[in-house]
């Protein structure tokens, strides 16, 4: 028995030491063809898993499409796209080590993610030290403002969408009073505060803005009771996760609320229909280039490919499809040098102006955000404001971030 234990212990020890050696002597074989490596870091497990997974599926689908065409062309040479994806579990410690792995071990310069303020703020020192660029999906302004210059916001921040939506509703639907409800977490609370500011500027009457619910709440009846009691013309679901939105809508409607409901984040129509059903009618949200009537043929192809990769379409992907595309456009503009030097990439940022390939109608796609961050560090995703009509998203209007 003792001998057995001893040999088992030695075996475990041996495997462990072997594993360490493997980890620390890890060097990727040099690929034959030219490769553009993209990293992805985000939350891909737990309750918020969909945020990171949608990023991953978008990259995977787009990369497959590019690679079937022989790769993307930069300075006359074709590059196949490879990507490495890491789950940070929304833990800042894992985000830092994951990012270090991407930039040092995998030697990647362009990373898509992370998805929330906590992880995005934690990786900033890493990407700056390594000279890399990341496209983050967190809304904190500090990430994109000087002295920082290596992070780019990949979507429309709610504080940008809020004023545009409220203004539209004030002018077109006669909204005079407004209430806010937010998940009790960094991002949604920040979004609520920005929303309140914007509403004040527009002269709307703010009835309530302190109501929040815990992450993981499933019953929104109690908290919604209180909001509905104030009977505002518009209830804003600040920074609501696609999972929570239909529940909040349902609770509000079941409590007899007759006014408008809106949010500034991207939502998913399937879950809205499944959970909220007819109650979702008239719900206003922000989407990417995803509503069928505005999709270009290229976007339609992408949607099909995404379905193959992920199993089903997710409307969040309409926004997140832009990240990889913009990296490639900018690299093409900046030339080969930018593959290893992000300074060349940064120089090319203000010059990128292309036709938006995902929209049927002609619109310019470029970097924006100077008005908010003092430098163009945001992808100019068109702000497509949707309304739910007959169980489908229909475009209410297409706005854009003021620059």
């Amino acid at each position: 028995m003792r001998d057995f234990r001893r040999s088992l212990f030695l075996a475990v020890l041996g495997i462990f030491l072997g594993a360490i050696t493997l980890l620390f002597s890890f060097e990727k074989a040099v690929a034959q063809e030219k490769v553009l490596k993209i990293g992805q870091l985000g939350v891909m497990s737990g309750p918020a898993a969909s945020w990171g997974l949608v990023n991953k599926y978008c990259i995977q689908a787009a990369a497959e499409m590019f690679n079937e065409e022989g790769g993307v062309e930069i300075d006359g040479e074709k590059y196949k796209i490879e990507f490495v994806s890491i789950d940070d579990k929304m833990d800042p410690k894992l985000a830092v080590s994951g990012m270090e792995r991407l930039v040092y071990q995998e030697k990647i310069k362009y990373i898509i993610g992370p998805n929330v303020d906590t992880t995005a703020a934690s990786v900033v020192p890493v990407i700056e030290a390594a000279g890399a660029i990341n496209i983050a999906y967190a809304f904190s302004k500090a990430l994109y403002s000087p002295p920082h210059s290596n992070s780019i916001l990949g979507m429309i921040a709610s504080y940008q969408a809020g004023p545009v939506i409220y203004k539209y509703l004030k002018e077109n639907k006669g909204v005079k009073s407004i209430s806010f409800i937010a998940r009790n977490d960094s991002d949604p609370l920040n979004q609520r505060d920005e929303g309140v500011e914007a509403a004040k500027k527009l002269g709307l009457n703010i009835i309530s803005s302190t109501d929040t619910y815990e992450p993981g709440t499933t019953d929104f009846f109690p908290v919604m009771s209180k909001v509905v009691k104030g009977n505002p013309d518009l209830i804003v679901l600040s920074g609501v996760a696609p999972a929570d939105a239909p529940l909040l809508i349902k609770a509000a409607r079941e409590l007899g609320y007759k006014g408008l409901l809106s949010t500034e984040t991207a939502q998913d129509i399937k879950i809205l229909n499944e959970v909220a059903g007819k109650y979702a009618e008239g719900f206003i949200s922000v989407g990417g280039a995803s509503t069928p009537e505005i999709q270009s043929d290229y976007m339609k192809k992408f949607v099909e490919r995404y379905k193959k990769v992920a199993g089903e379409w997710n409307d969040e992907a309409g926004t997140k499809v832009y990240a990889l595309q913009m990296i490639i456009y900018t690299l093409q503009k900046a030339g080969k040098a930018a593959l290893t030097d992000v300074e060349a990439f940064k120089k090319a940022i203000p010059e990128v102006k292309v036709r938006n390939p995902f929209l049927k109608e002609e619109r310019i796609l470029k970097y924006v955000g100077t008005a908010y961050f003092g430098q163009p560090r945001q992808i100019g995703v068109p702000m497509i404001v949707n309304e739910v009509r007959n169980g489908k998203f229909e475009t209410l209007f297409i706005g854009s971030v003021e620059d």
Partner: protein
Amino acid sequence: MAATRKVESERVEEKVREGGKGKPGILSSVLPFSLSSVLLFFLGLIYLIIFPLLYRDSRYVLGVVINASMLSVISLGVWLTFTIGRTNISQGAFALIGGYTTAILSVRYGVSFWLCLPLSGLMAALIGALIGWPILRLRGVYFAMITLSLTEATRLAFLNGGDFTRGGTGIVDIPRPGALSIAGITLIPAFKGSDPLPFYYLAASLLVLTLISLRRLTQSRIGWVFRSLRQNEELASSIGINVAKYRVMAYAICCFIGGLGGSFFAAFQQNIYPATYTVTDSIYFMLYCFLGGLDYLFGPVVGAFLLIISFELLHSIQTYQTMIYAIIMITFMLWLPNGILSLRFKK
């Protein structure tokens, strides 16, 4: 049954009276003496000197080992509460308290990190002692569940802390440690920009210091008292041990260590949010202890290094990572319930 209890009681009593004098400590009692010290010496040498020299330029590898080292430190606190027979799921709360102490002191009042570090530990220990005194009366799953609520409550408290904790927006841009000088002599130079090497030395020294202090503690009379509490509190009390005092002492030391860890990570990551440590973290700290083996001081260290490094290795089968974690947990409980170290060092 009665007979064995009597024998056990005599044994405990005898050991407490002896105060551990003349008895070999926890490590040397399980290791052949010469081998263990030689092995430890070499491991320490590699860890403190050879490894950082070899991997000086690999931030990623250093980063992984820094994480593993500091998580080991925090878990060692949890290990200490295991020695008094309590399952402690509150360590995340005290790491959070430590982190916020450092964040608030250094950002708001410009206090040097070298003062923040011990203050964070003391703050955590103080709060731990205050809360621990009443709740340590609970045992078993009751204690486990209340400590779990404590982790949640702490997170919510920081989230609702208003301007003082900046709520959900967290505290960012925490300065890196500056120079430490006493009487004009610079003992530790300021941590420059992004170089991880100073953090490595800091983490490594904290781990070694924690190990040495805990080893001394467990070998002392107090260590025996702690273990006697795990076996039978009533009995310990009947032979004149102030049970409440020692329980709180163990818990406060645990919290102190948690606070140190939180302080380190706040300076290392340069930010802290209420969600930086959650129940999941508290559970992982326990998991490291179990994996290595609760009977061994080195248990949490072995557990933490093994899991964190294998976590990095498993990136190639990344999608299944958490699943593999789960399977490891189940397999260990089924076939190796006393941890990895029990394979070699039979108690």
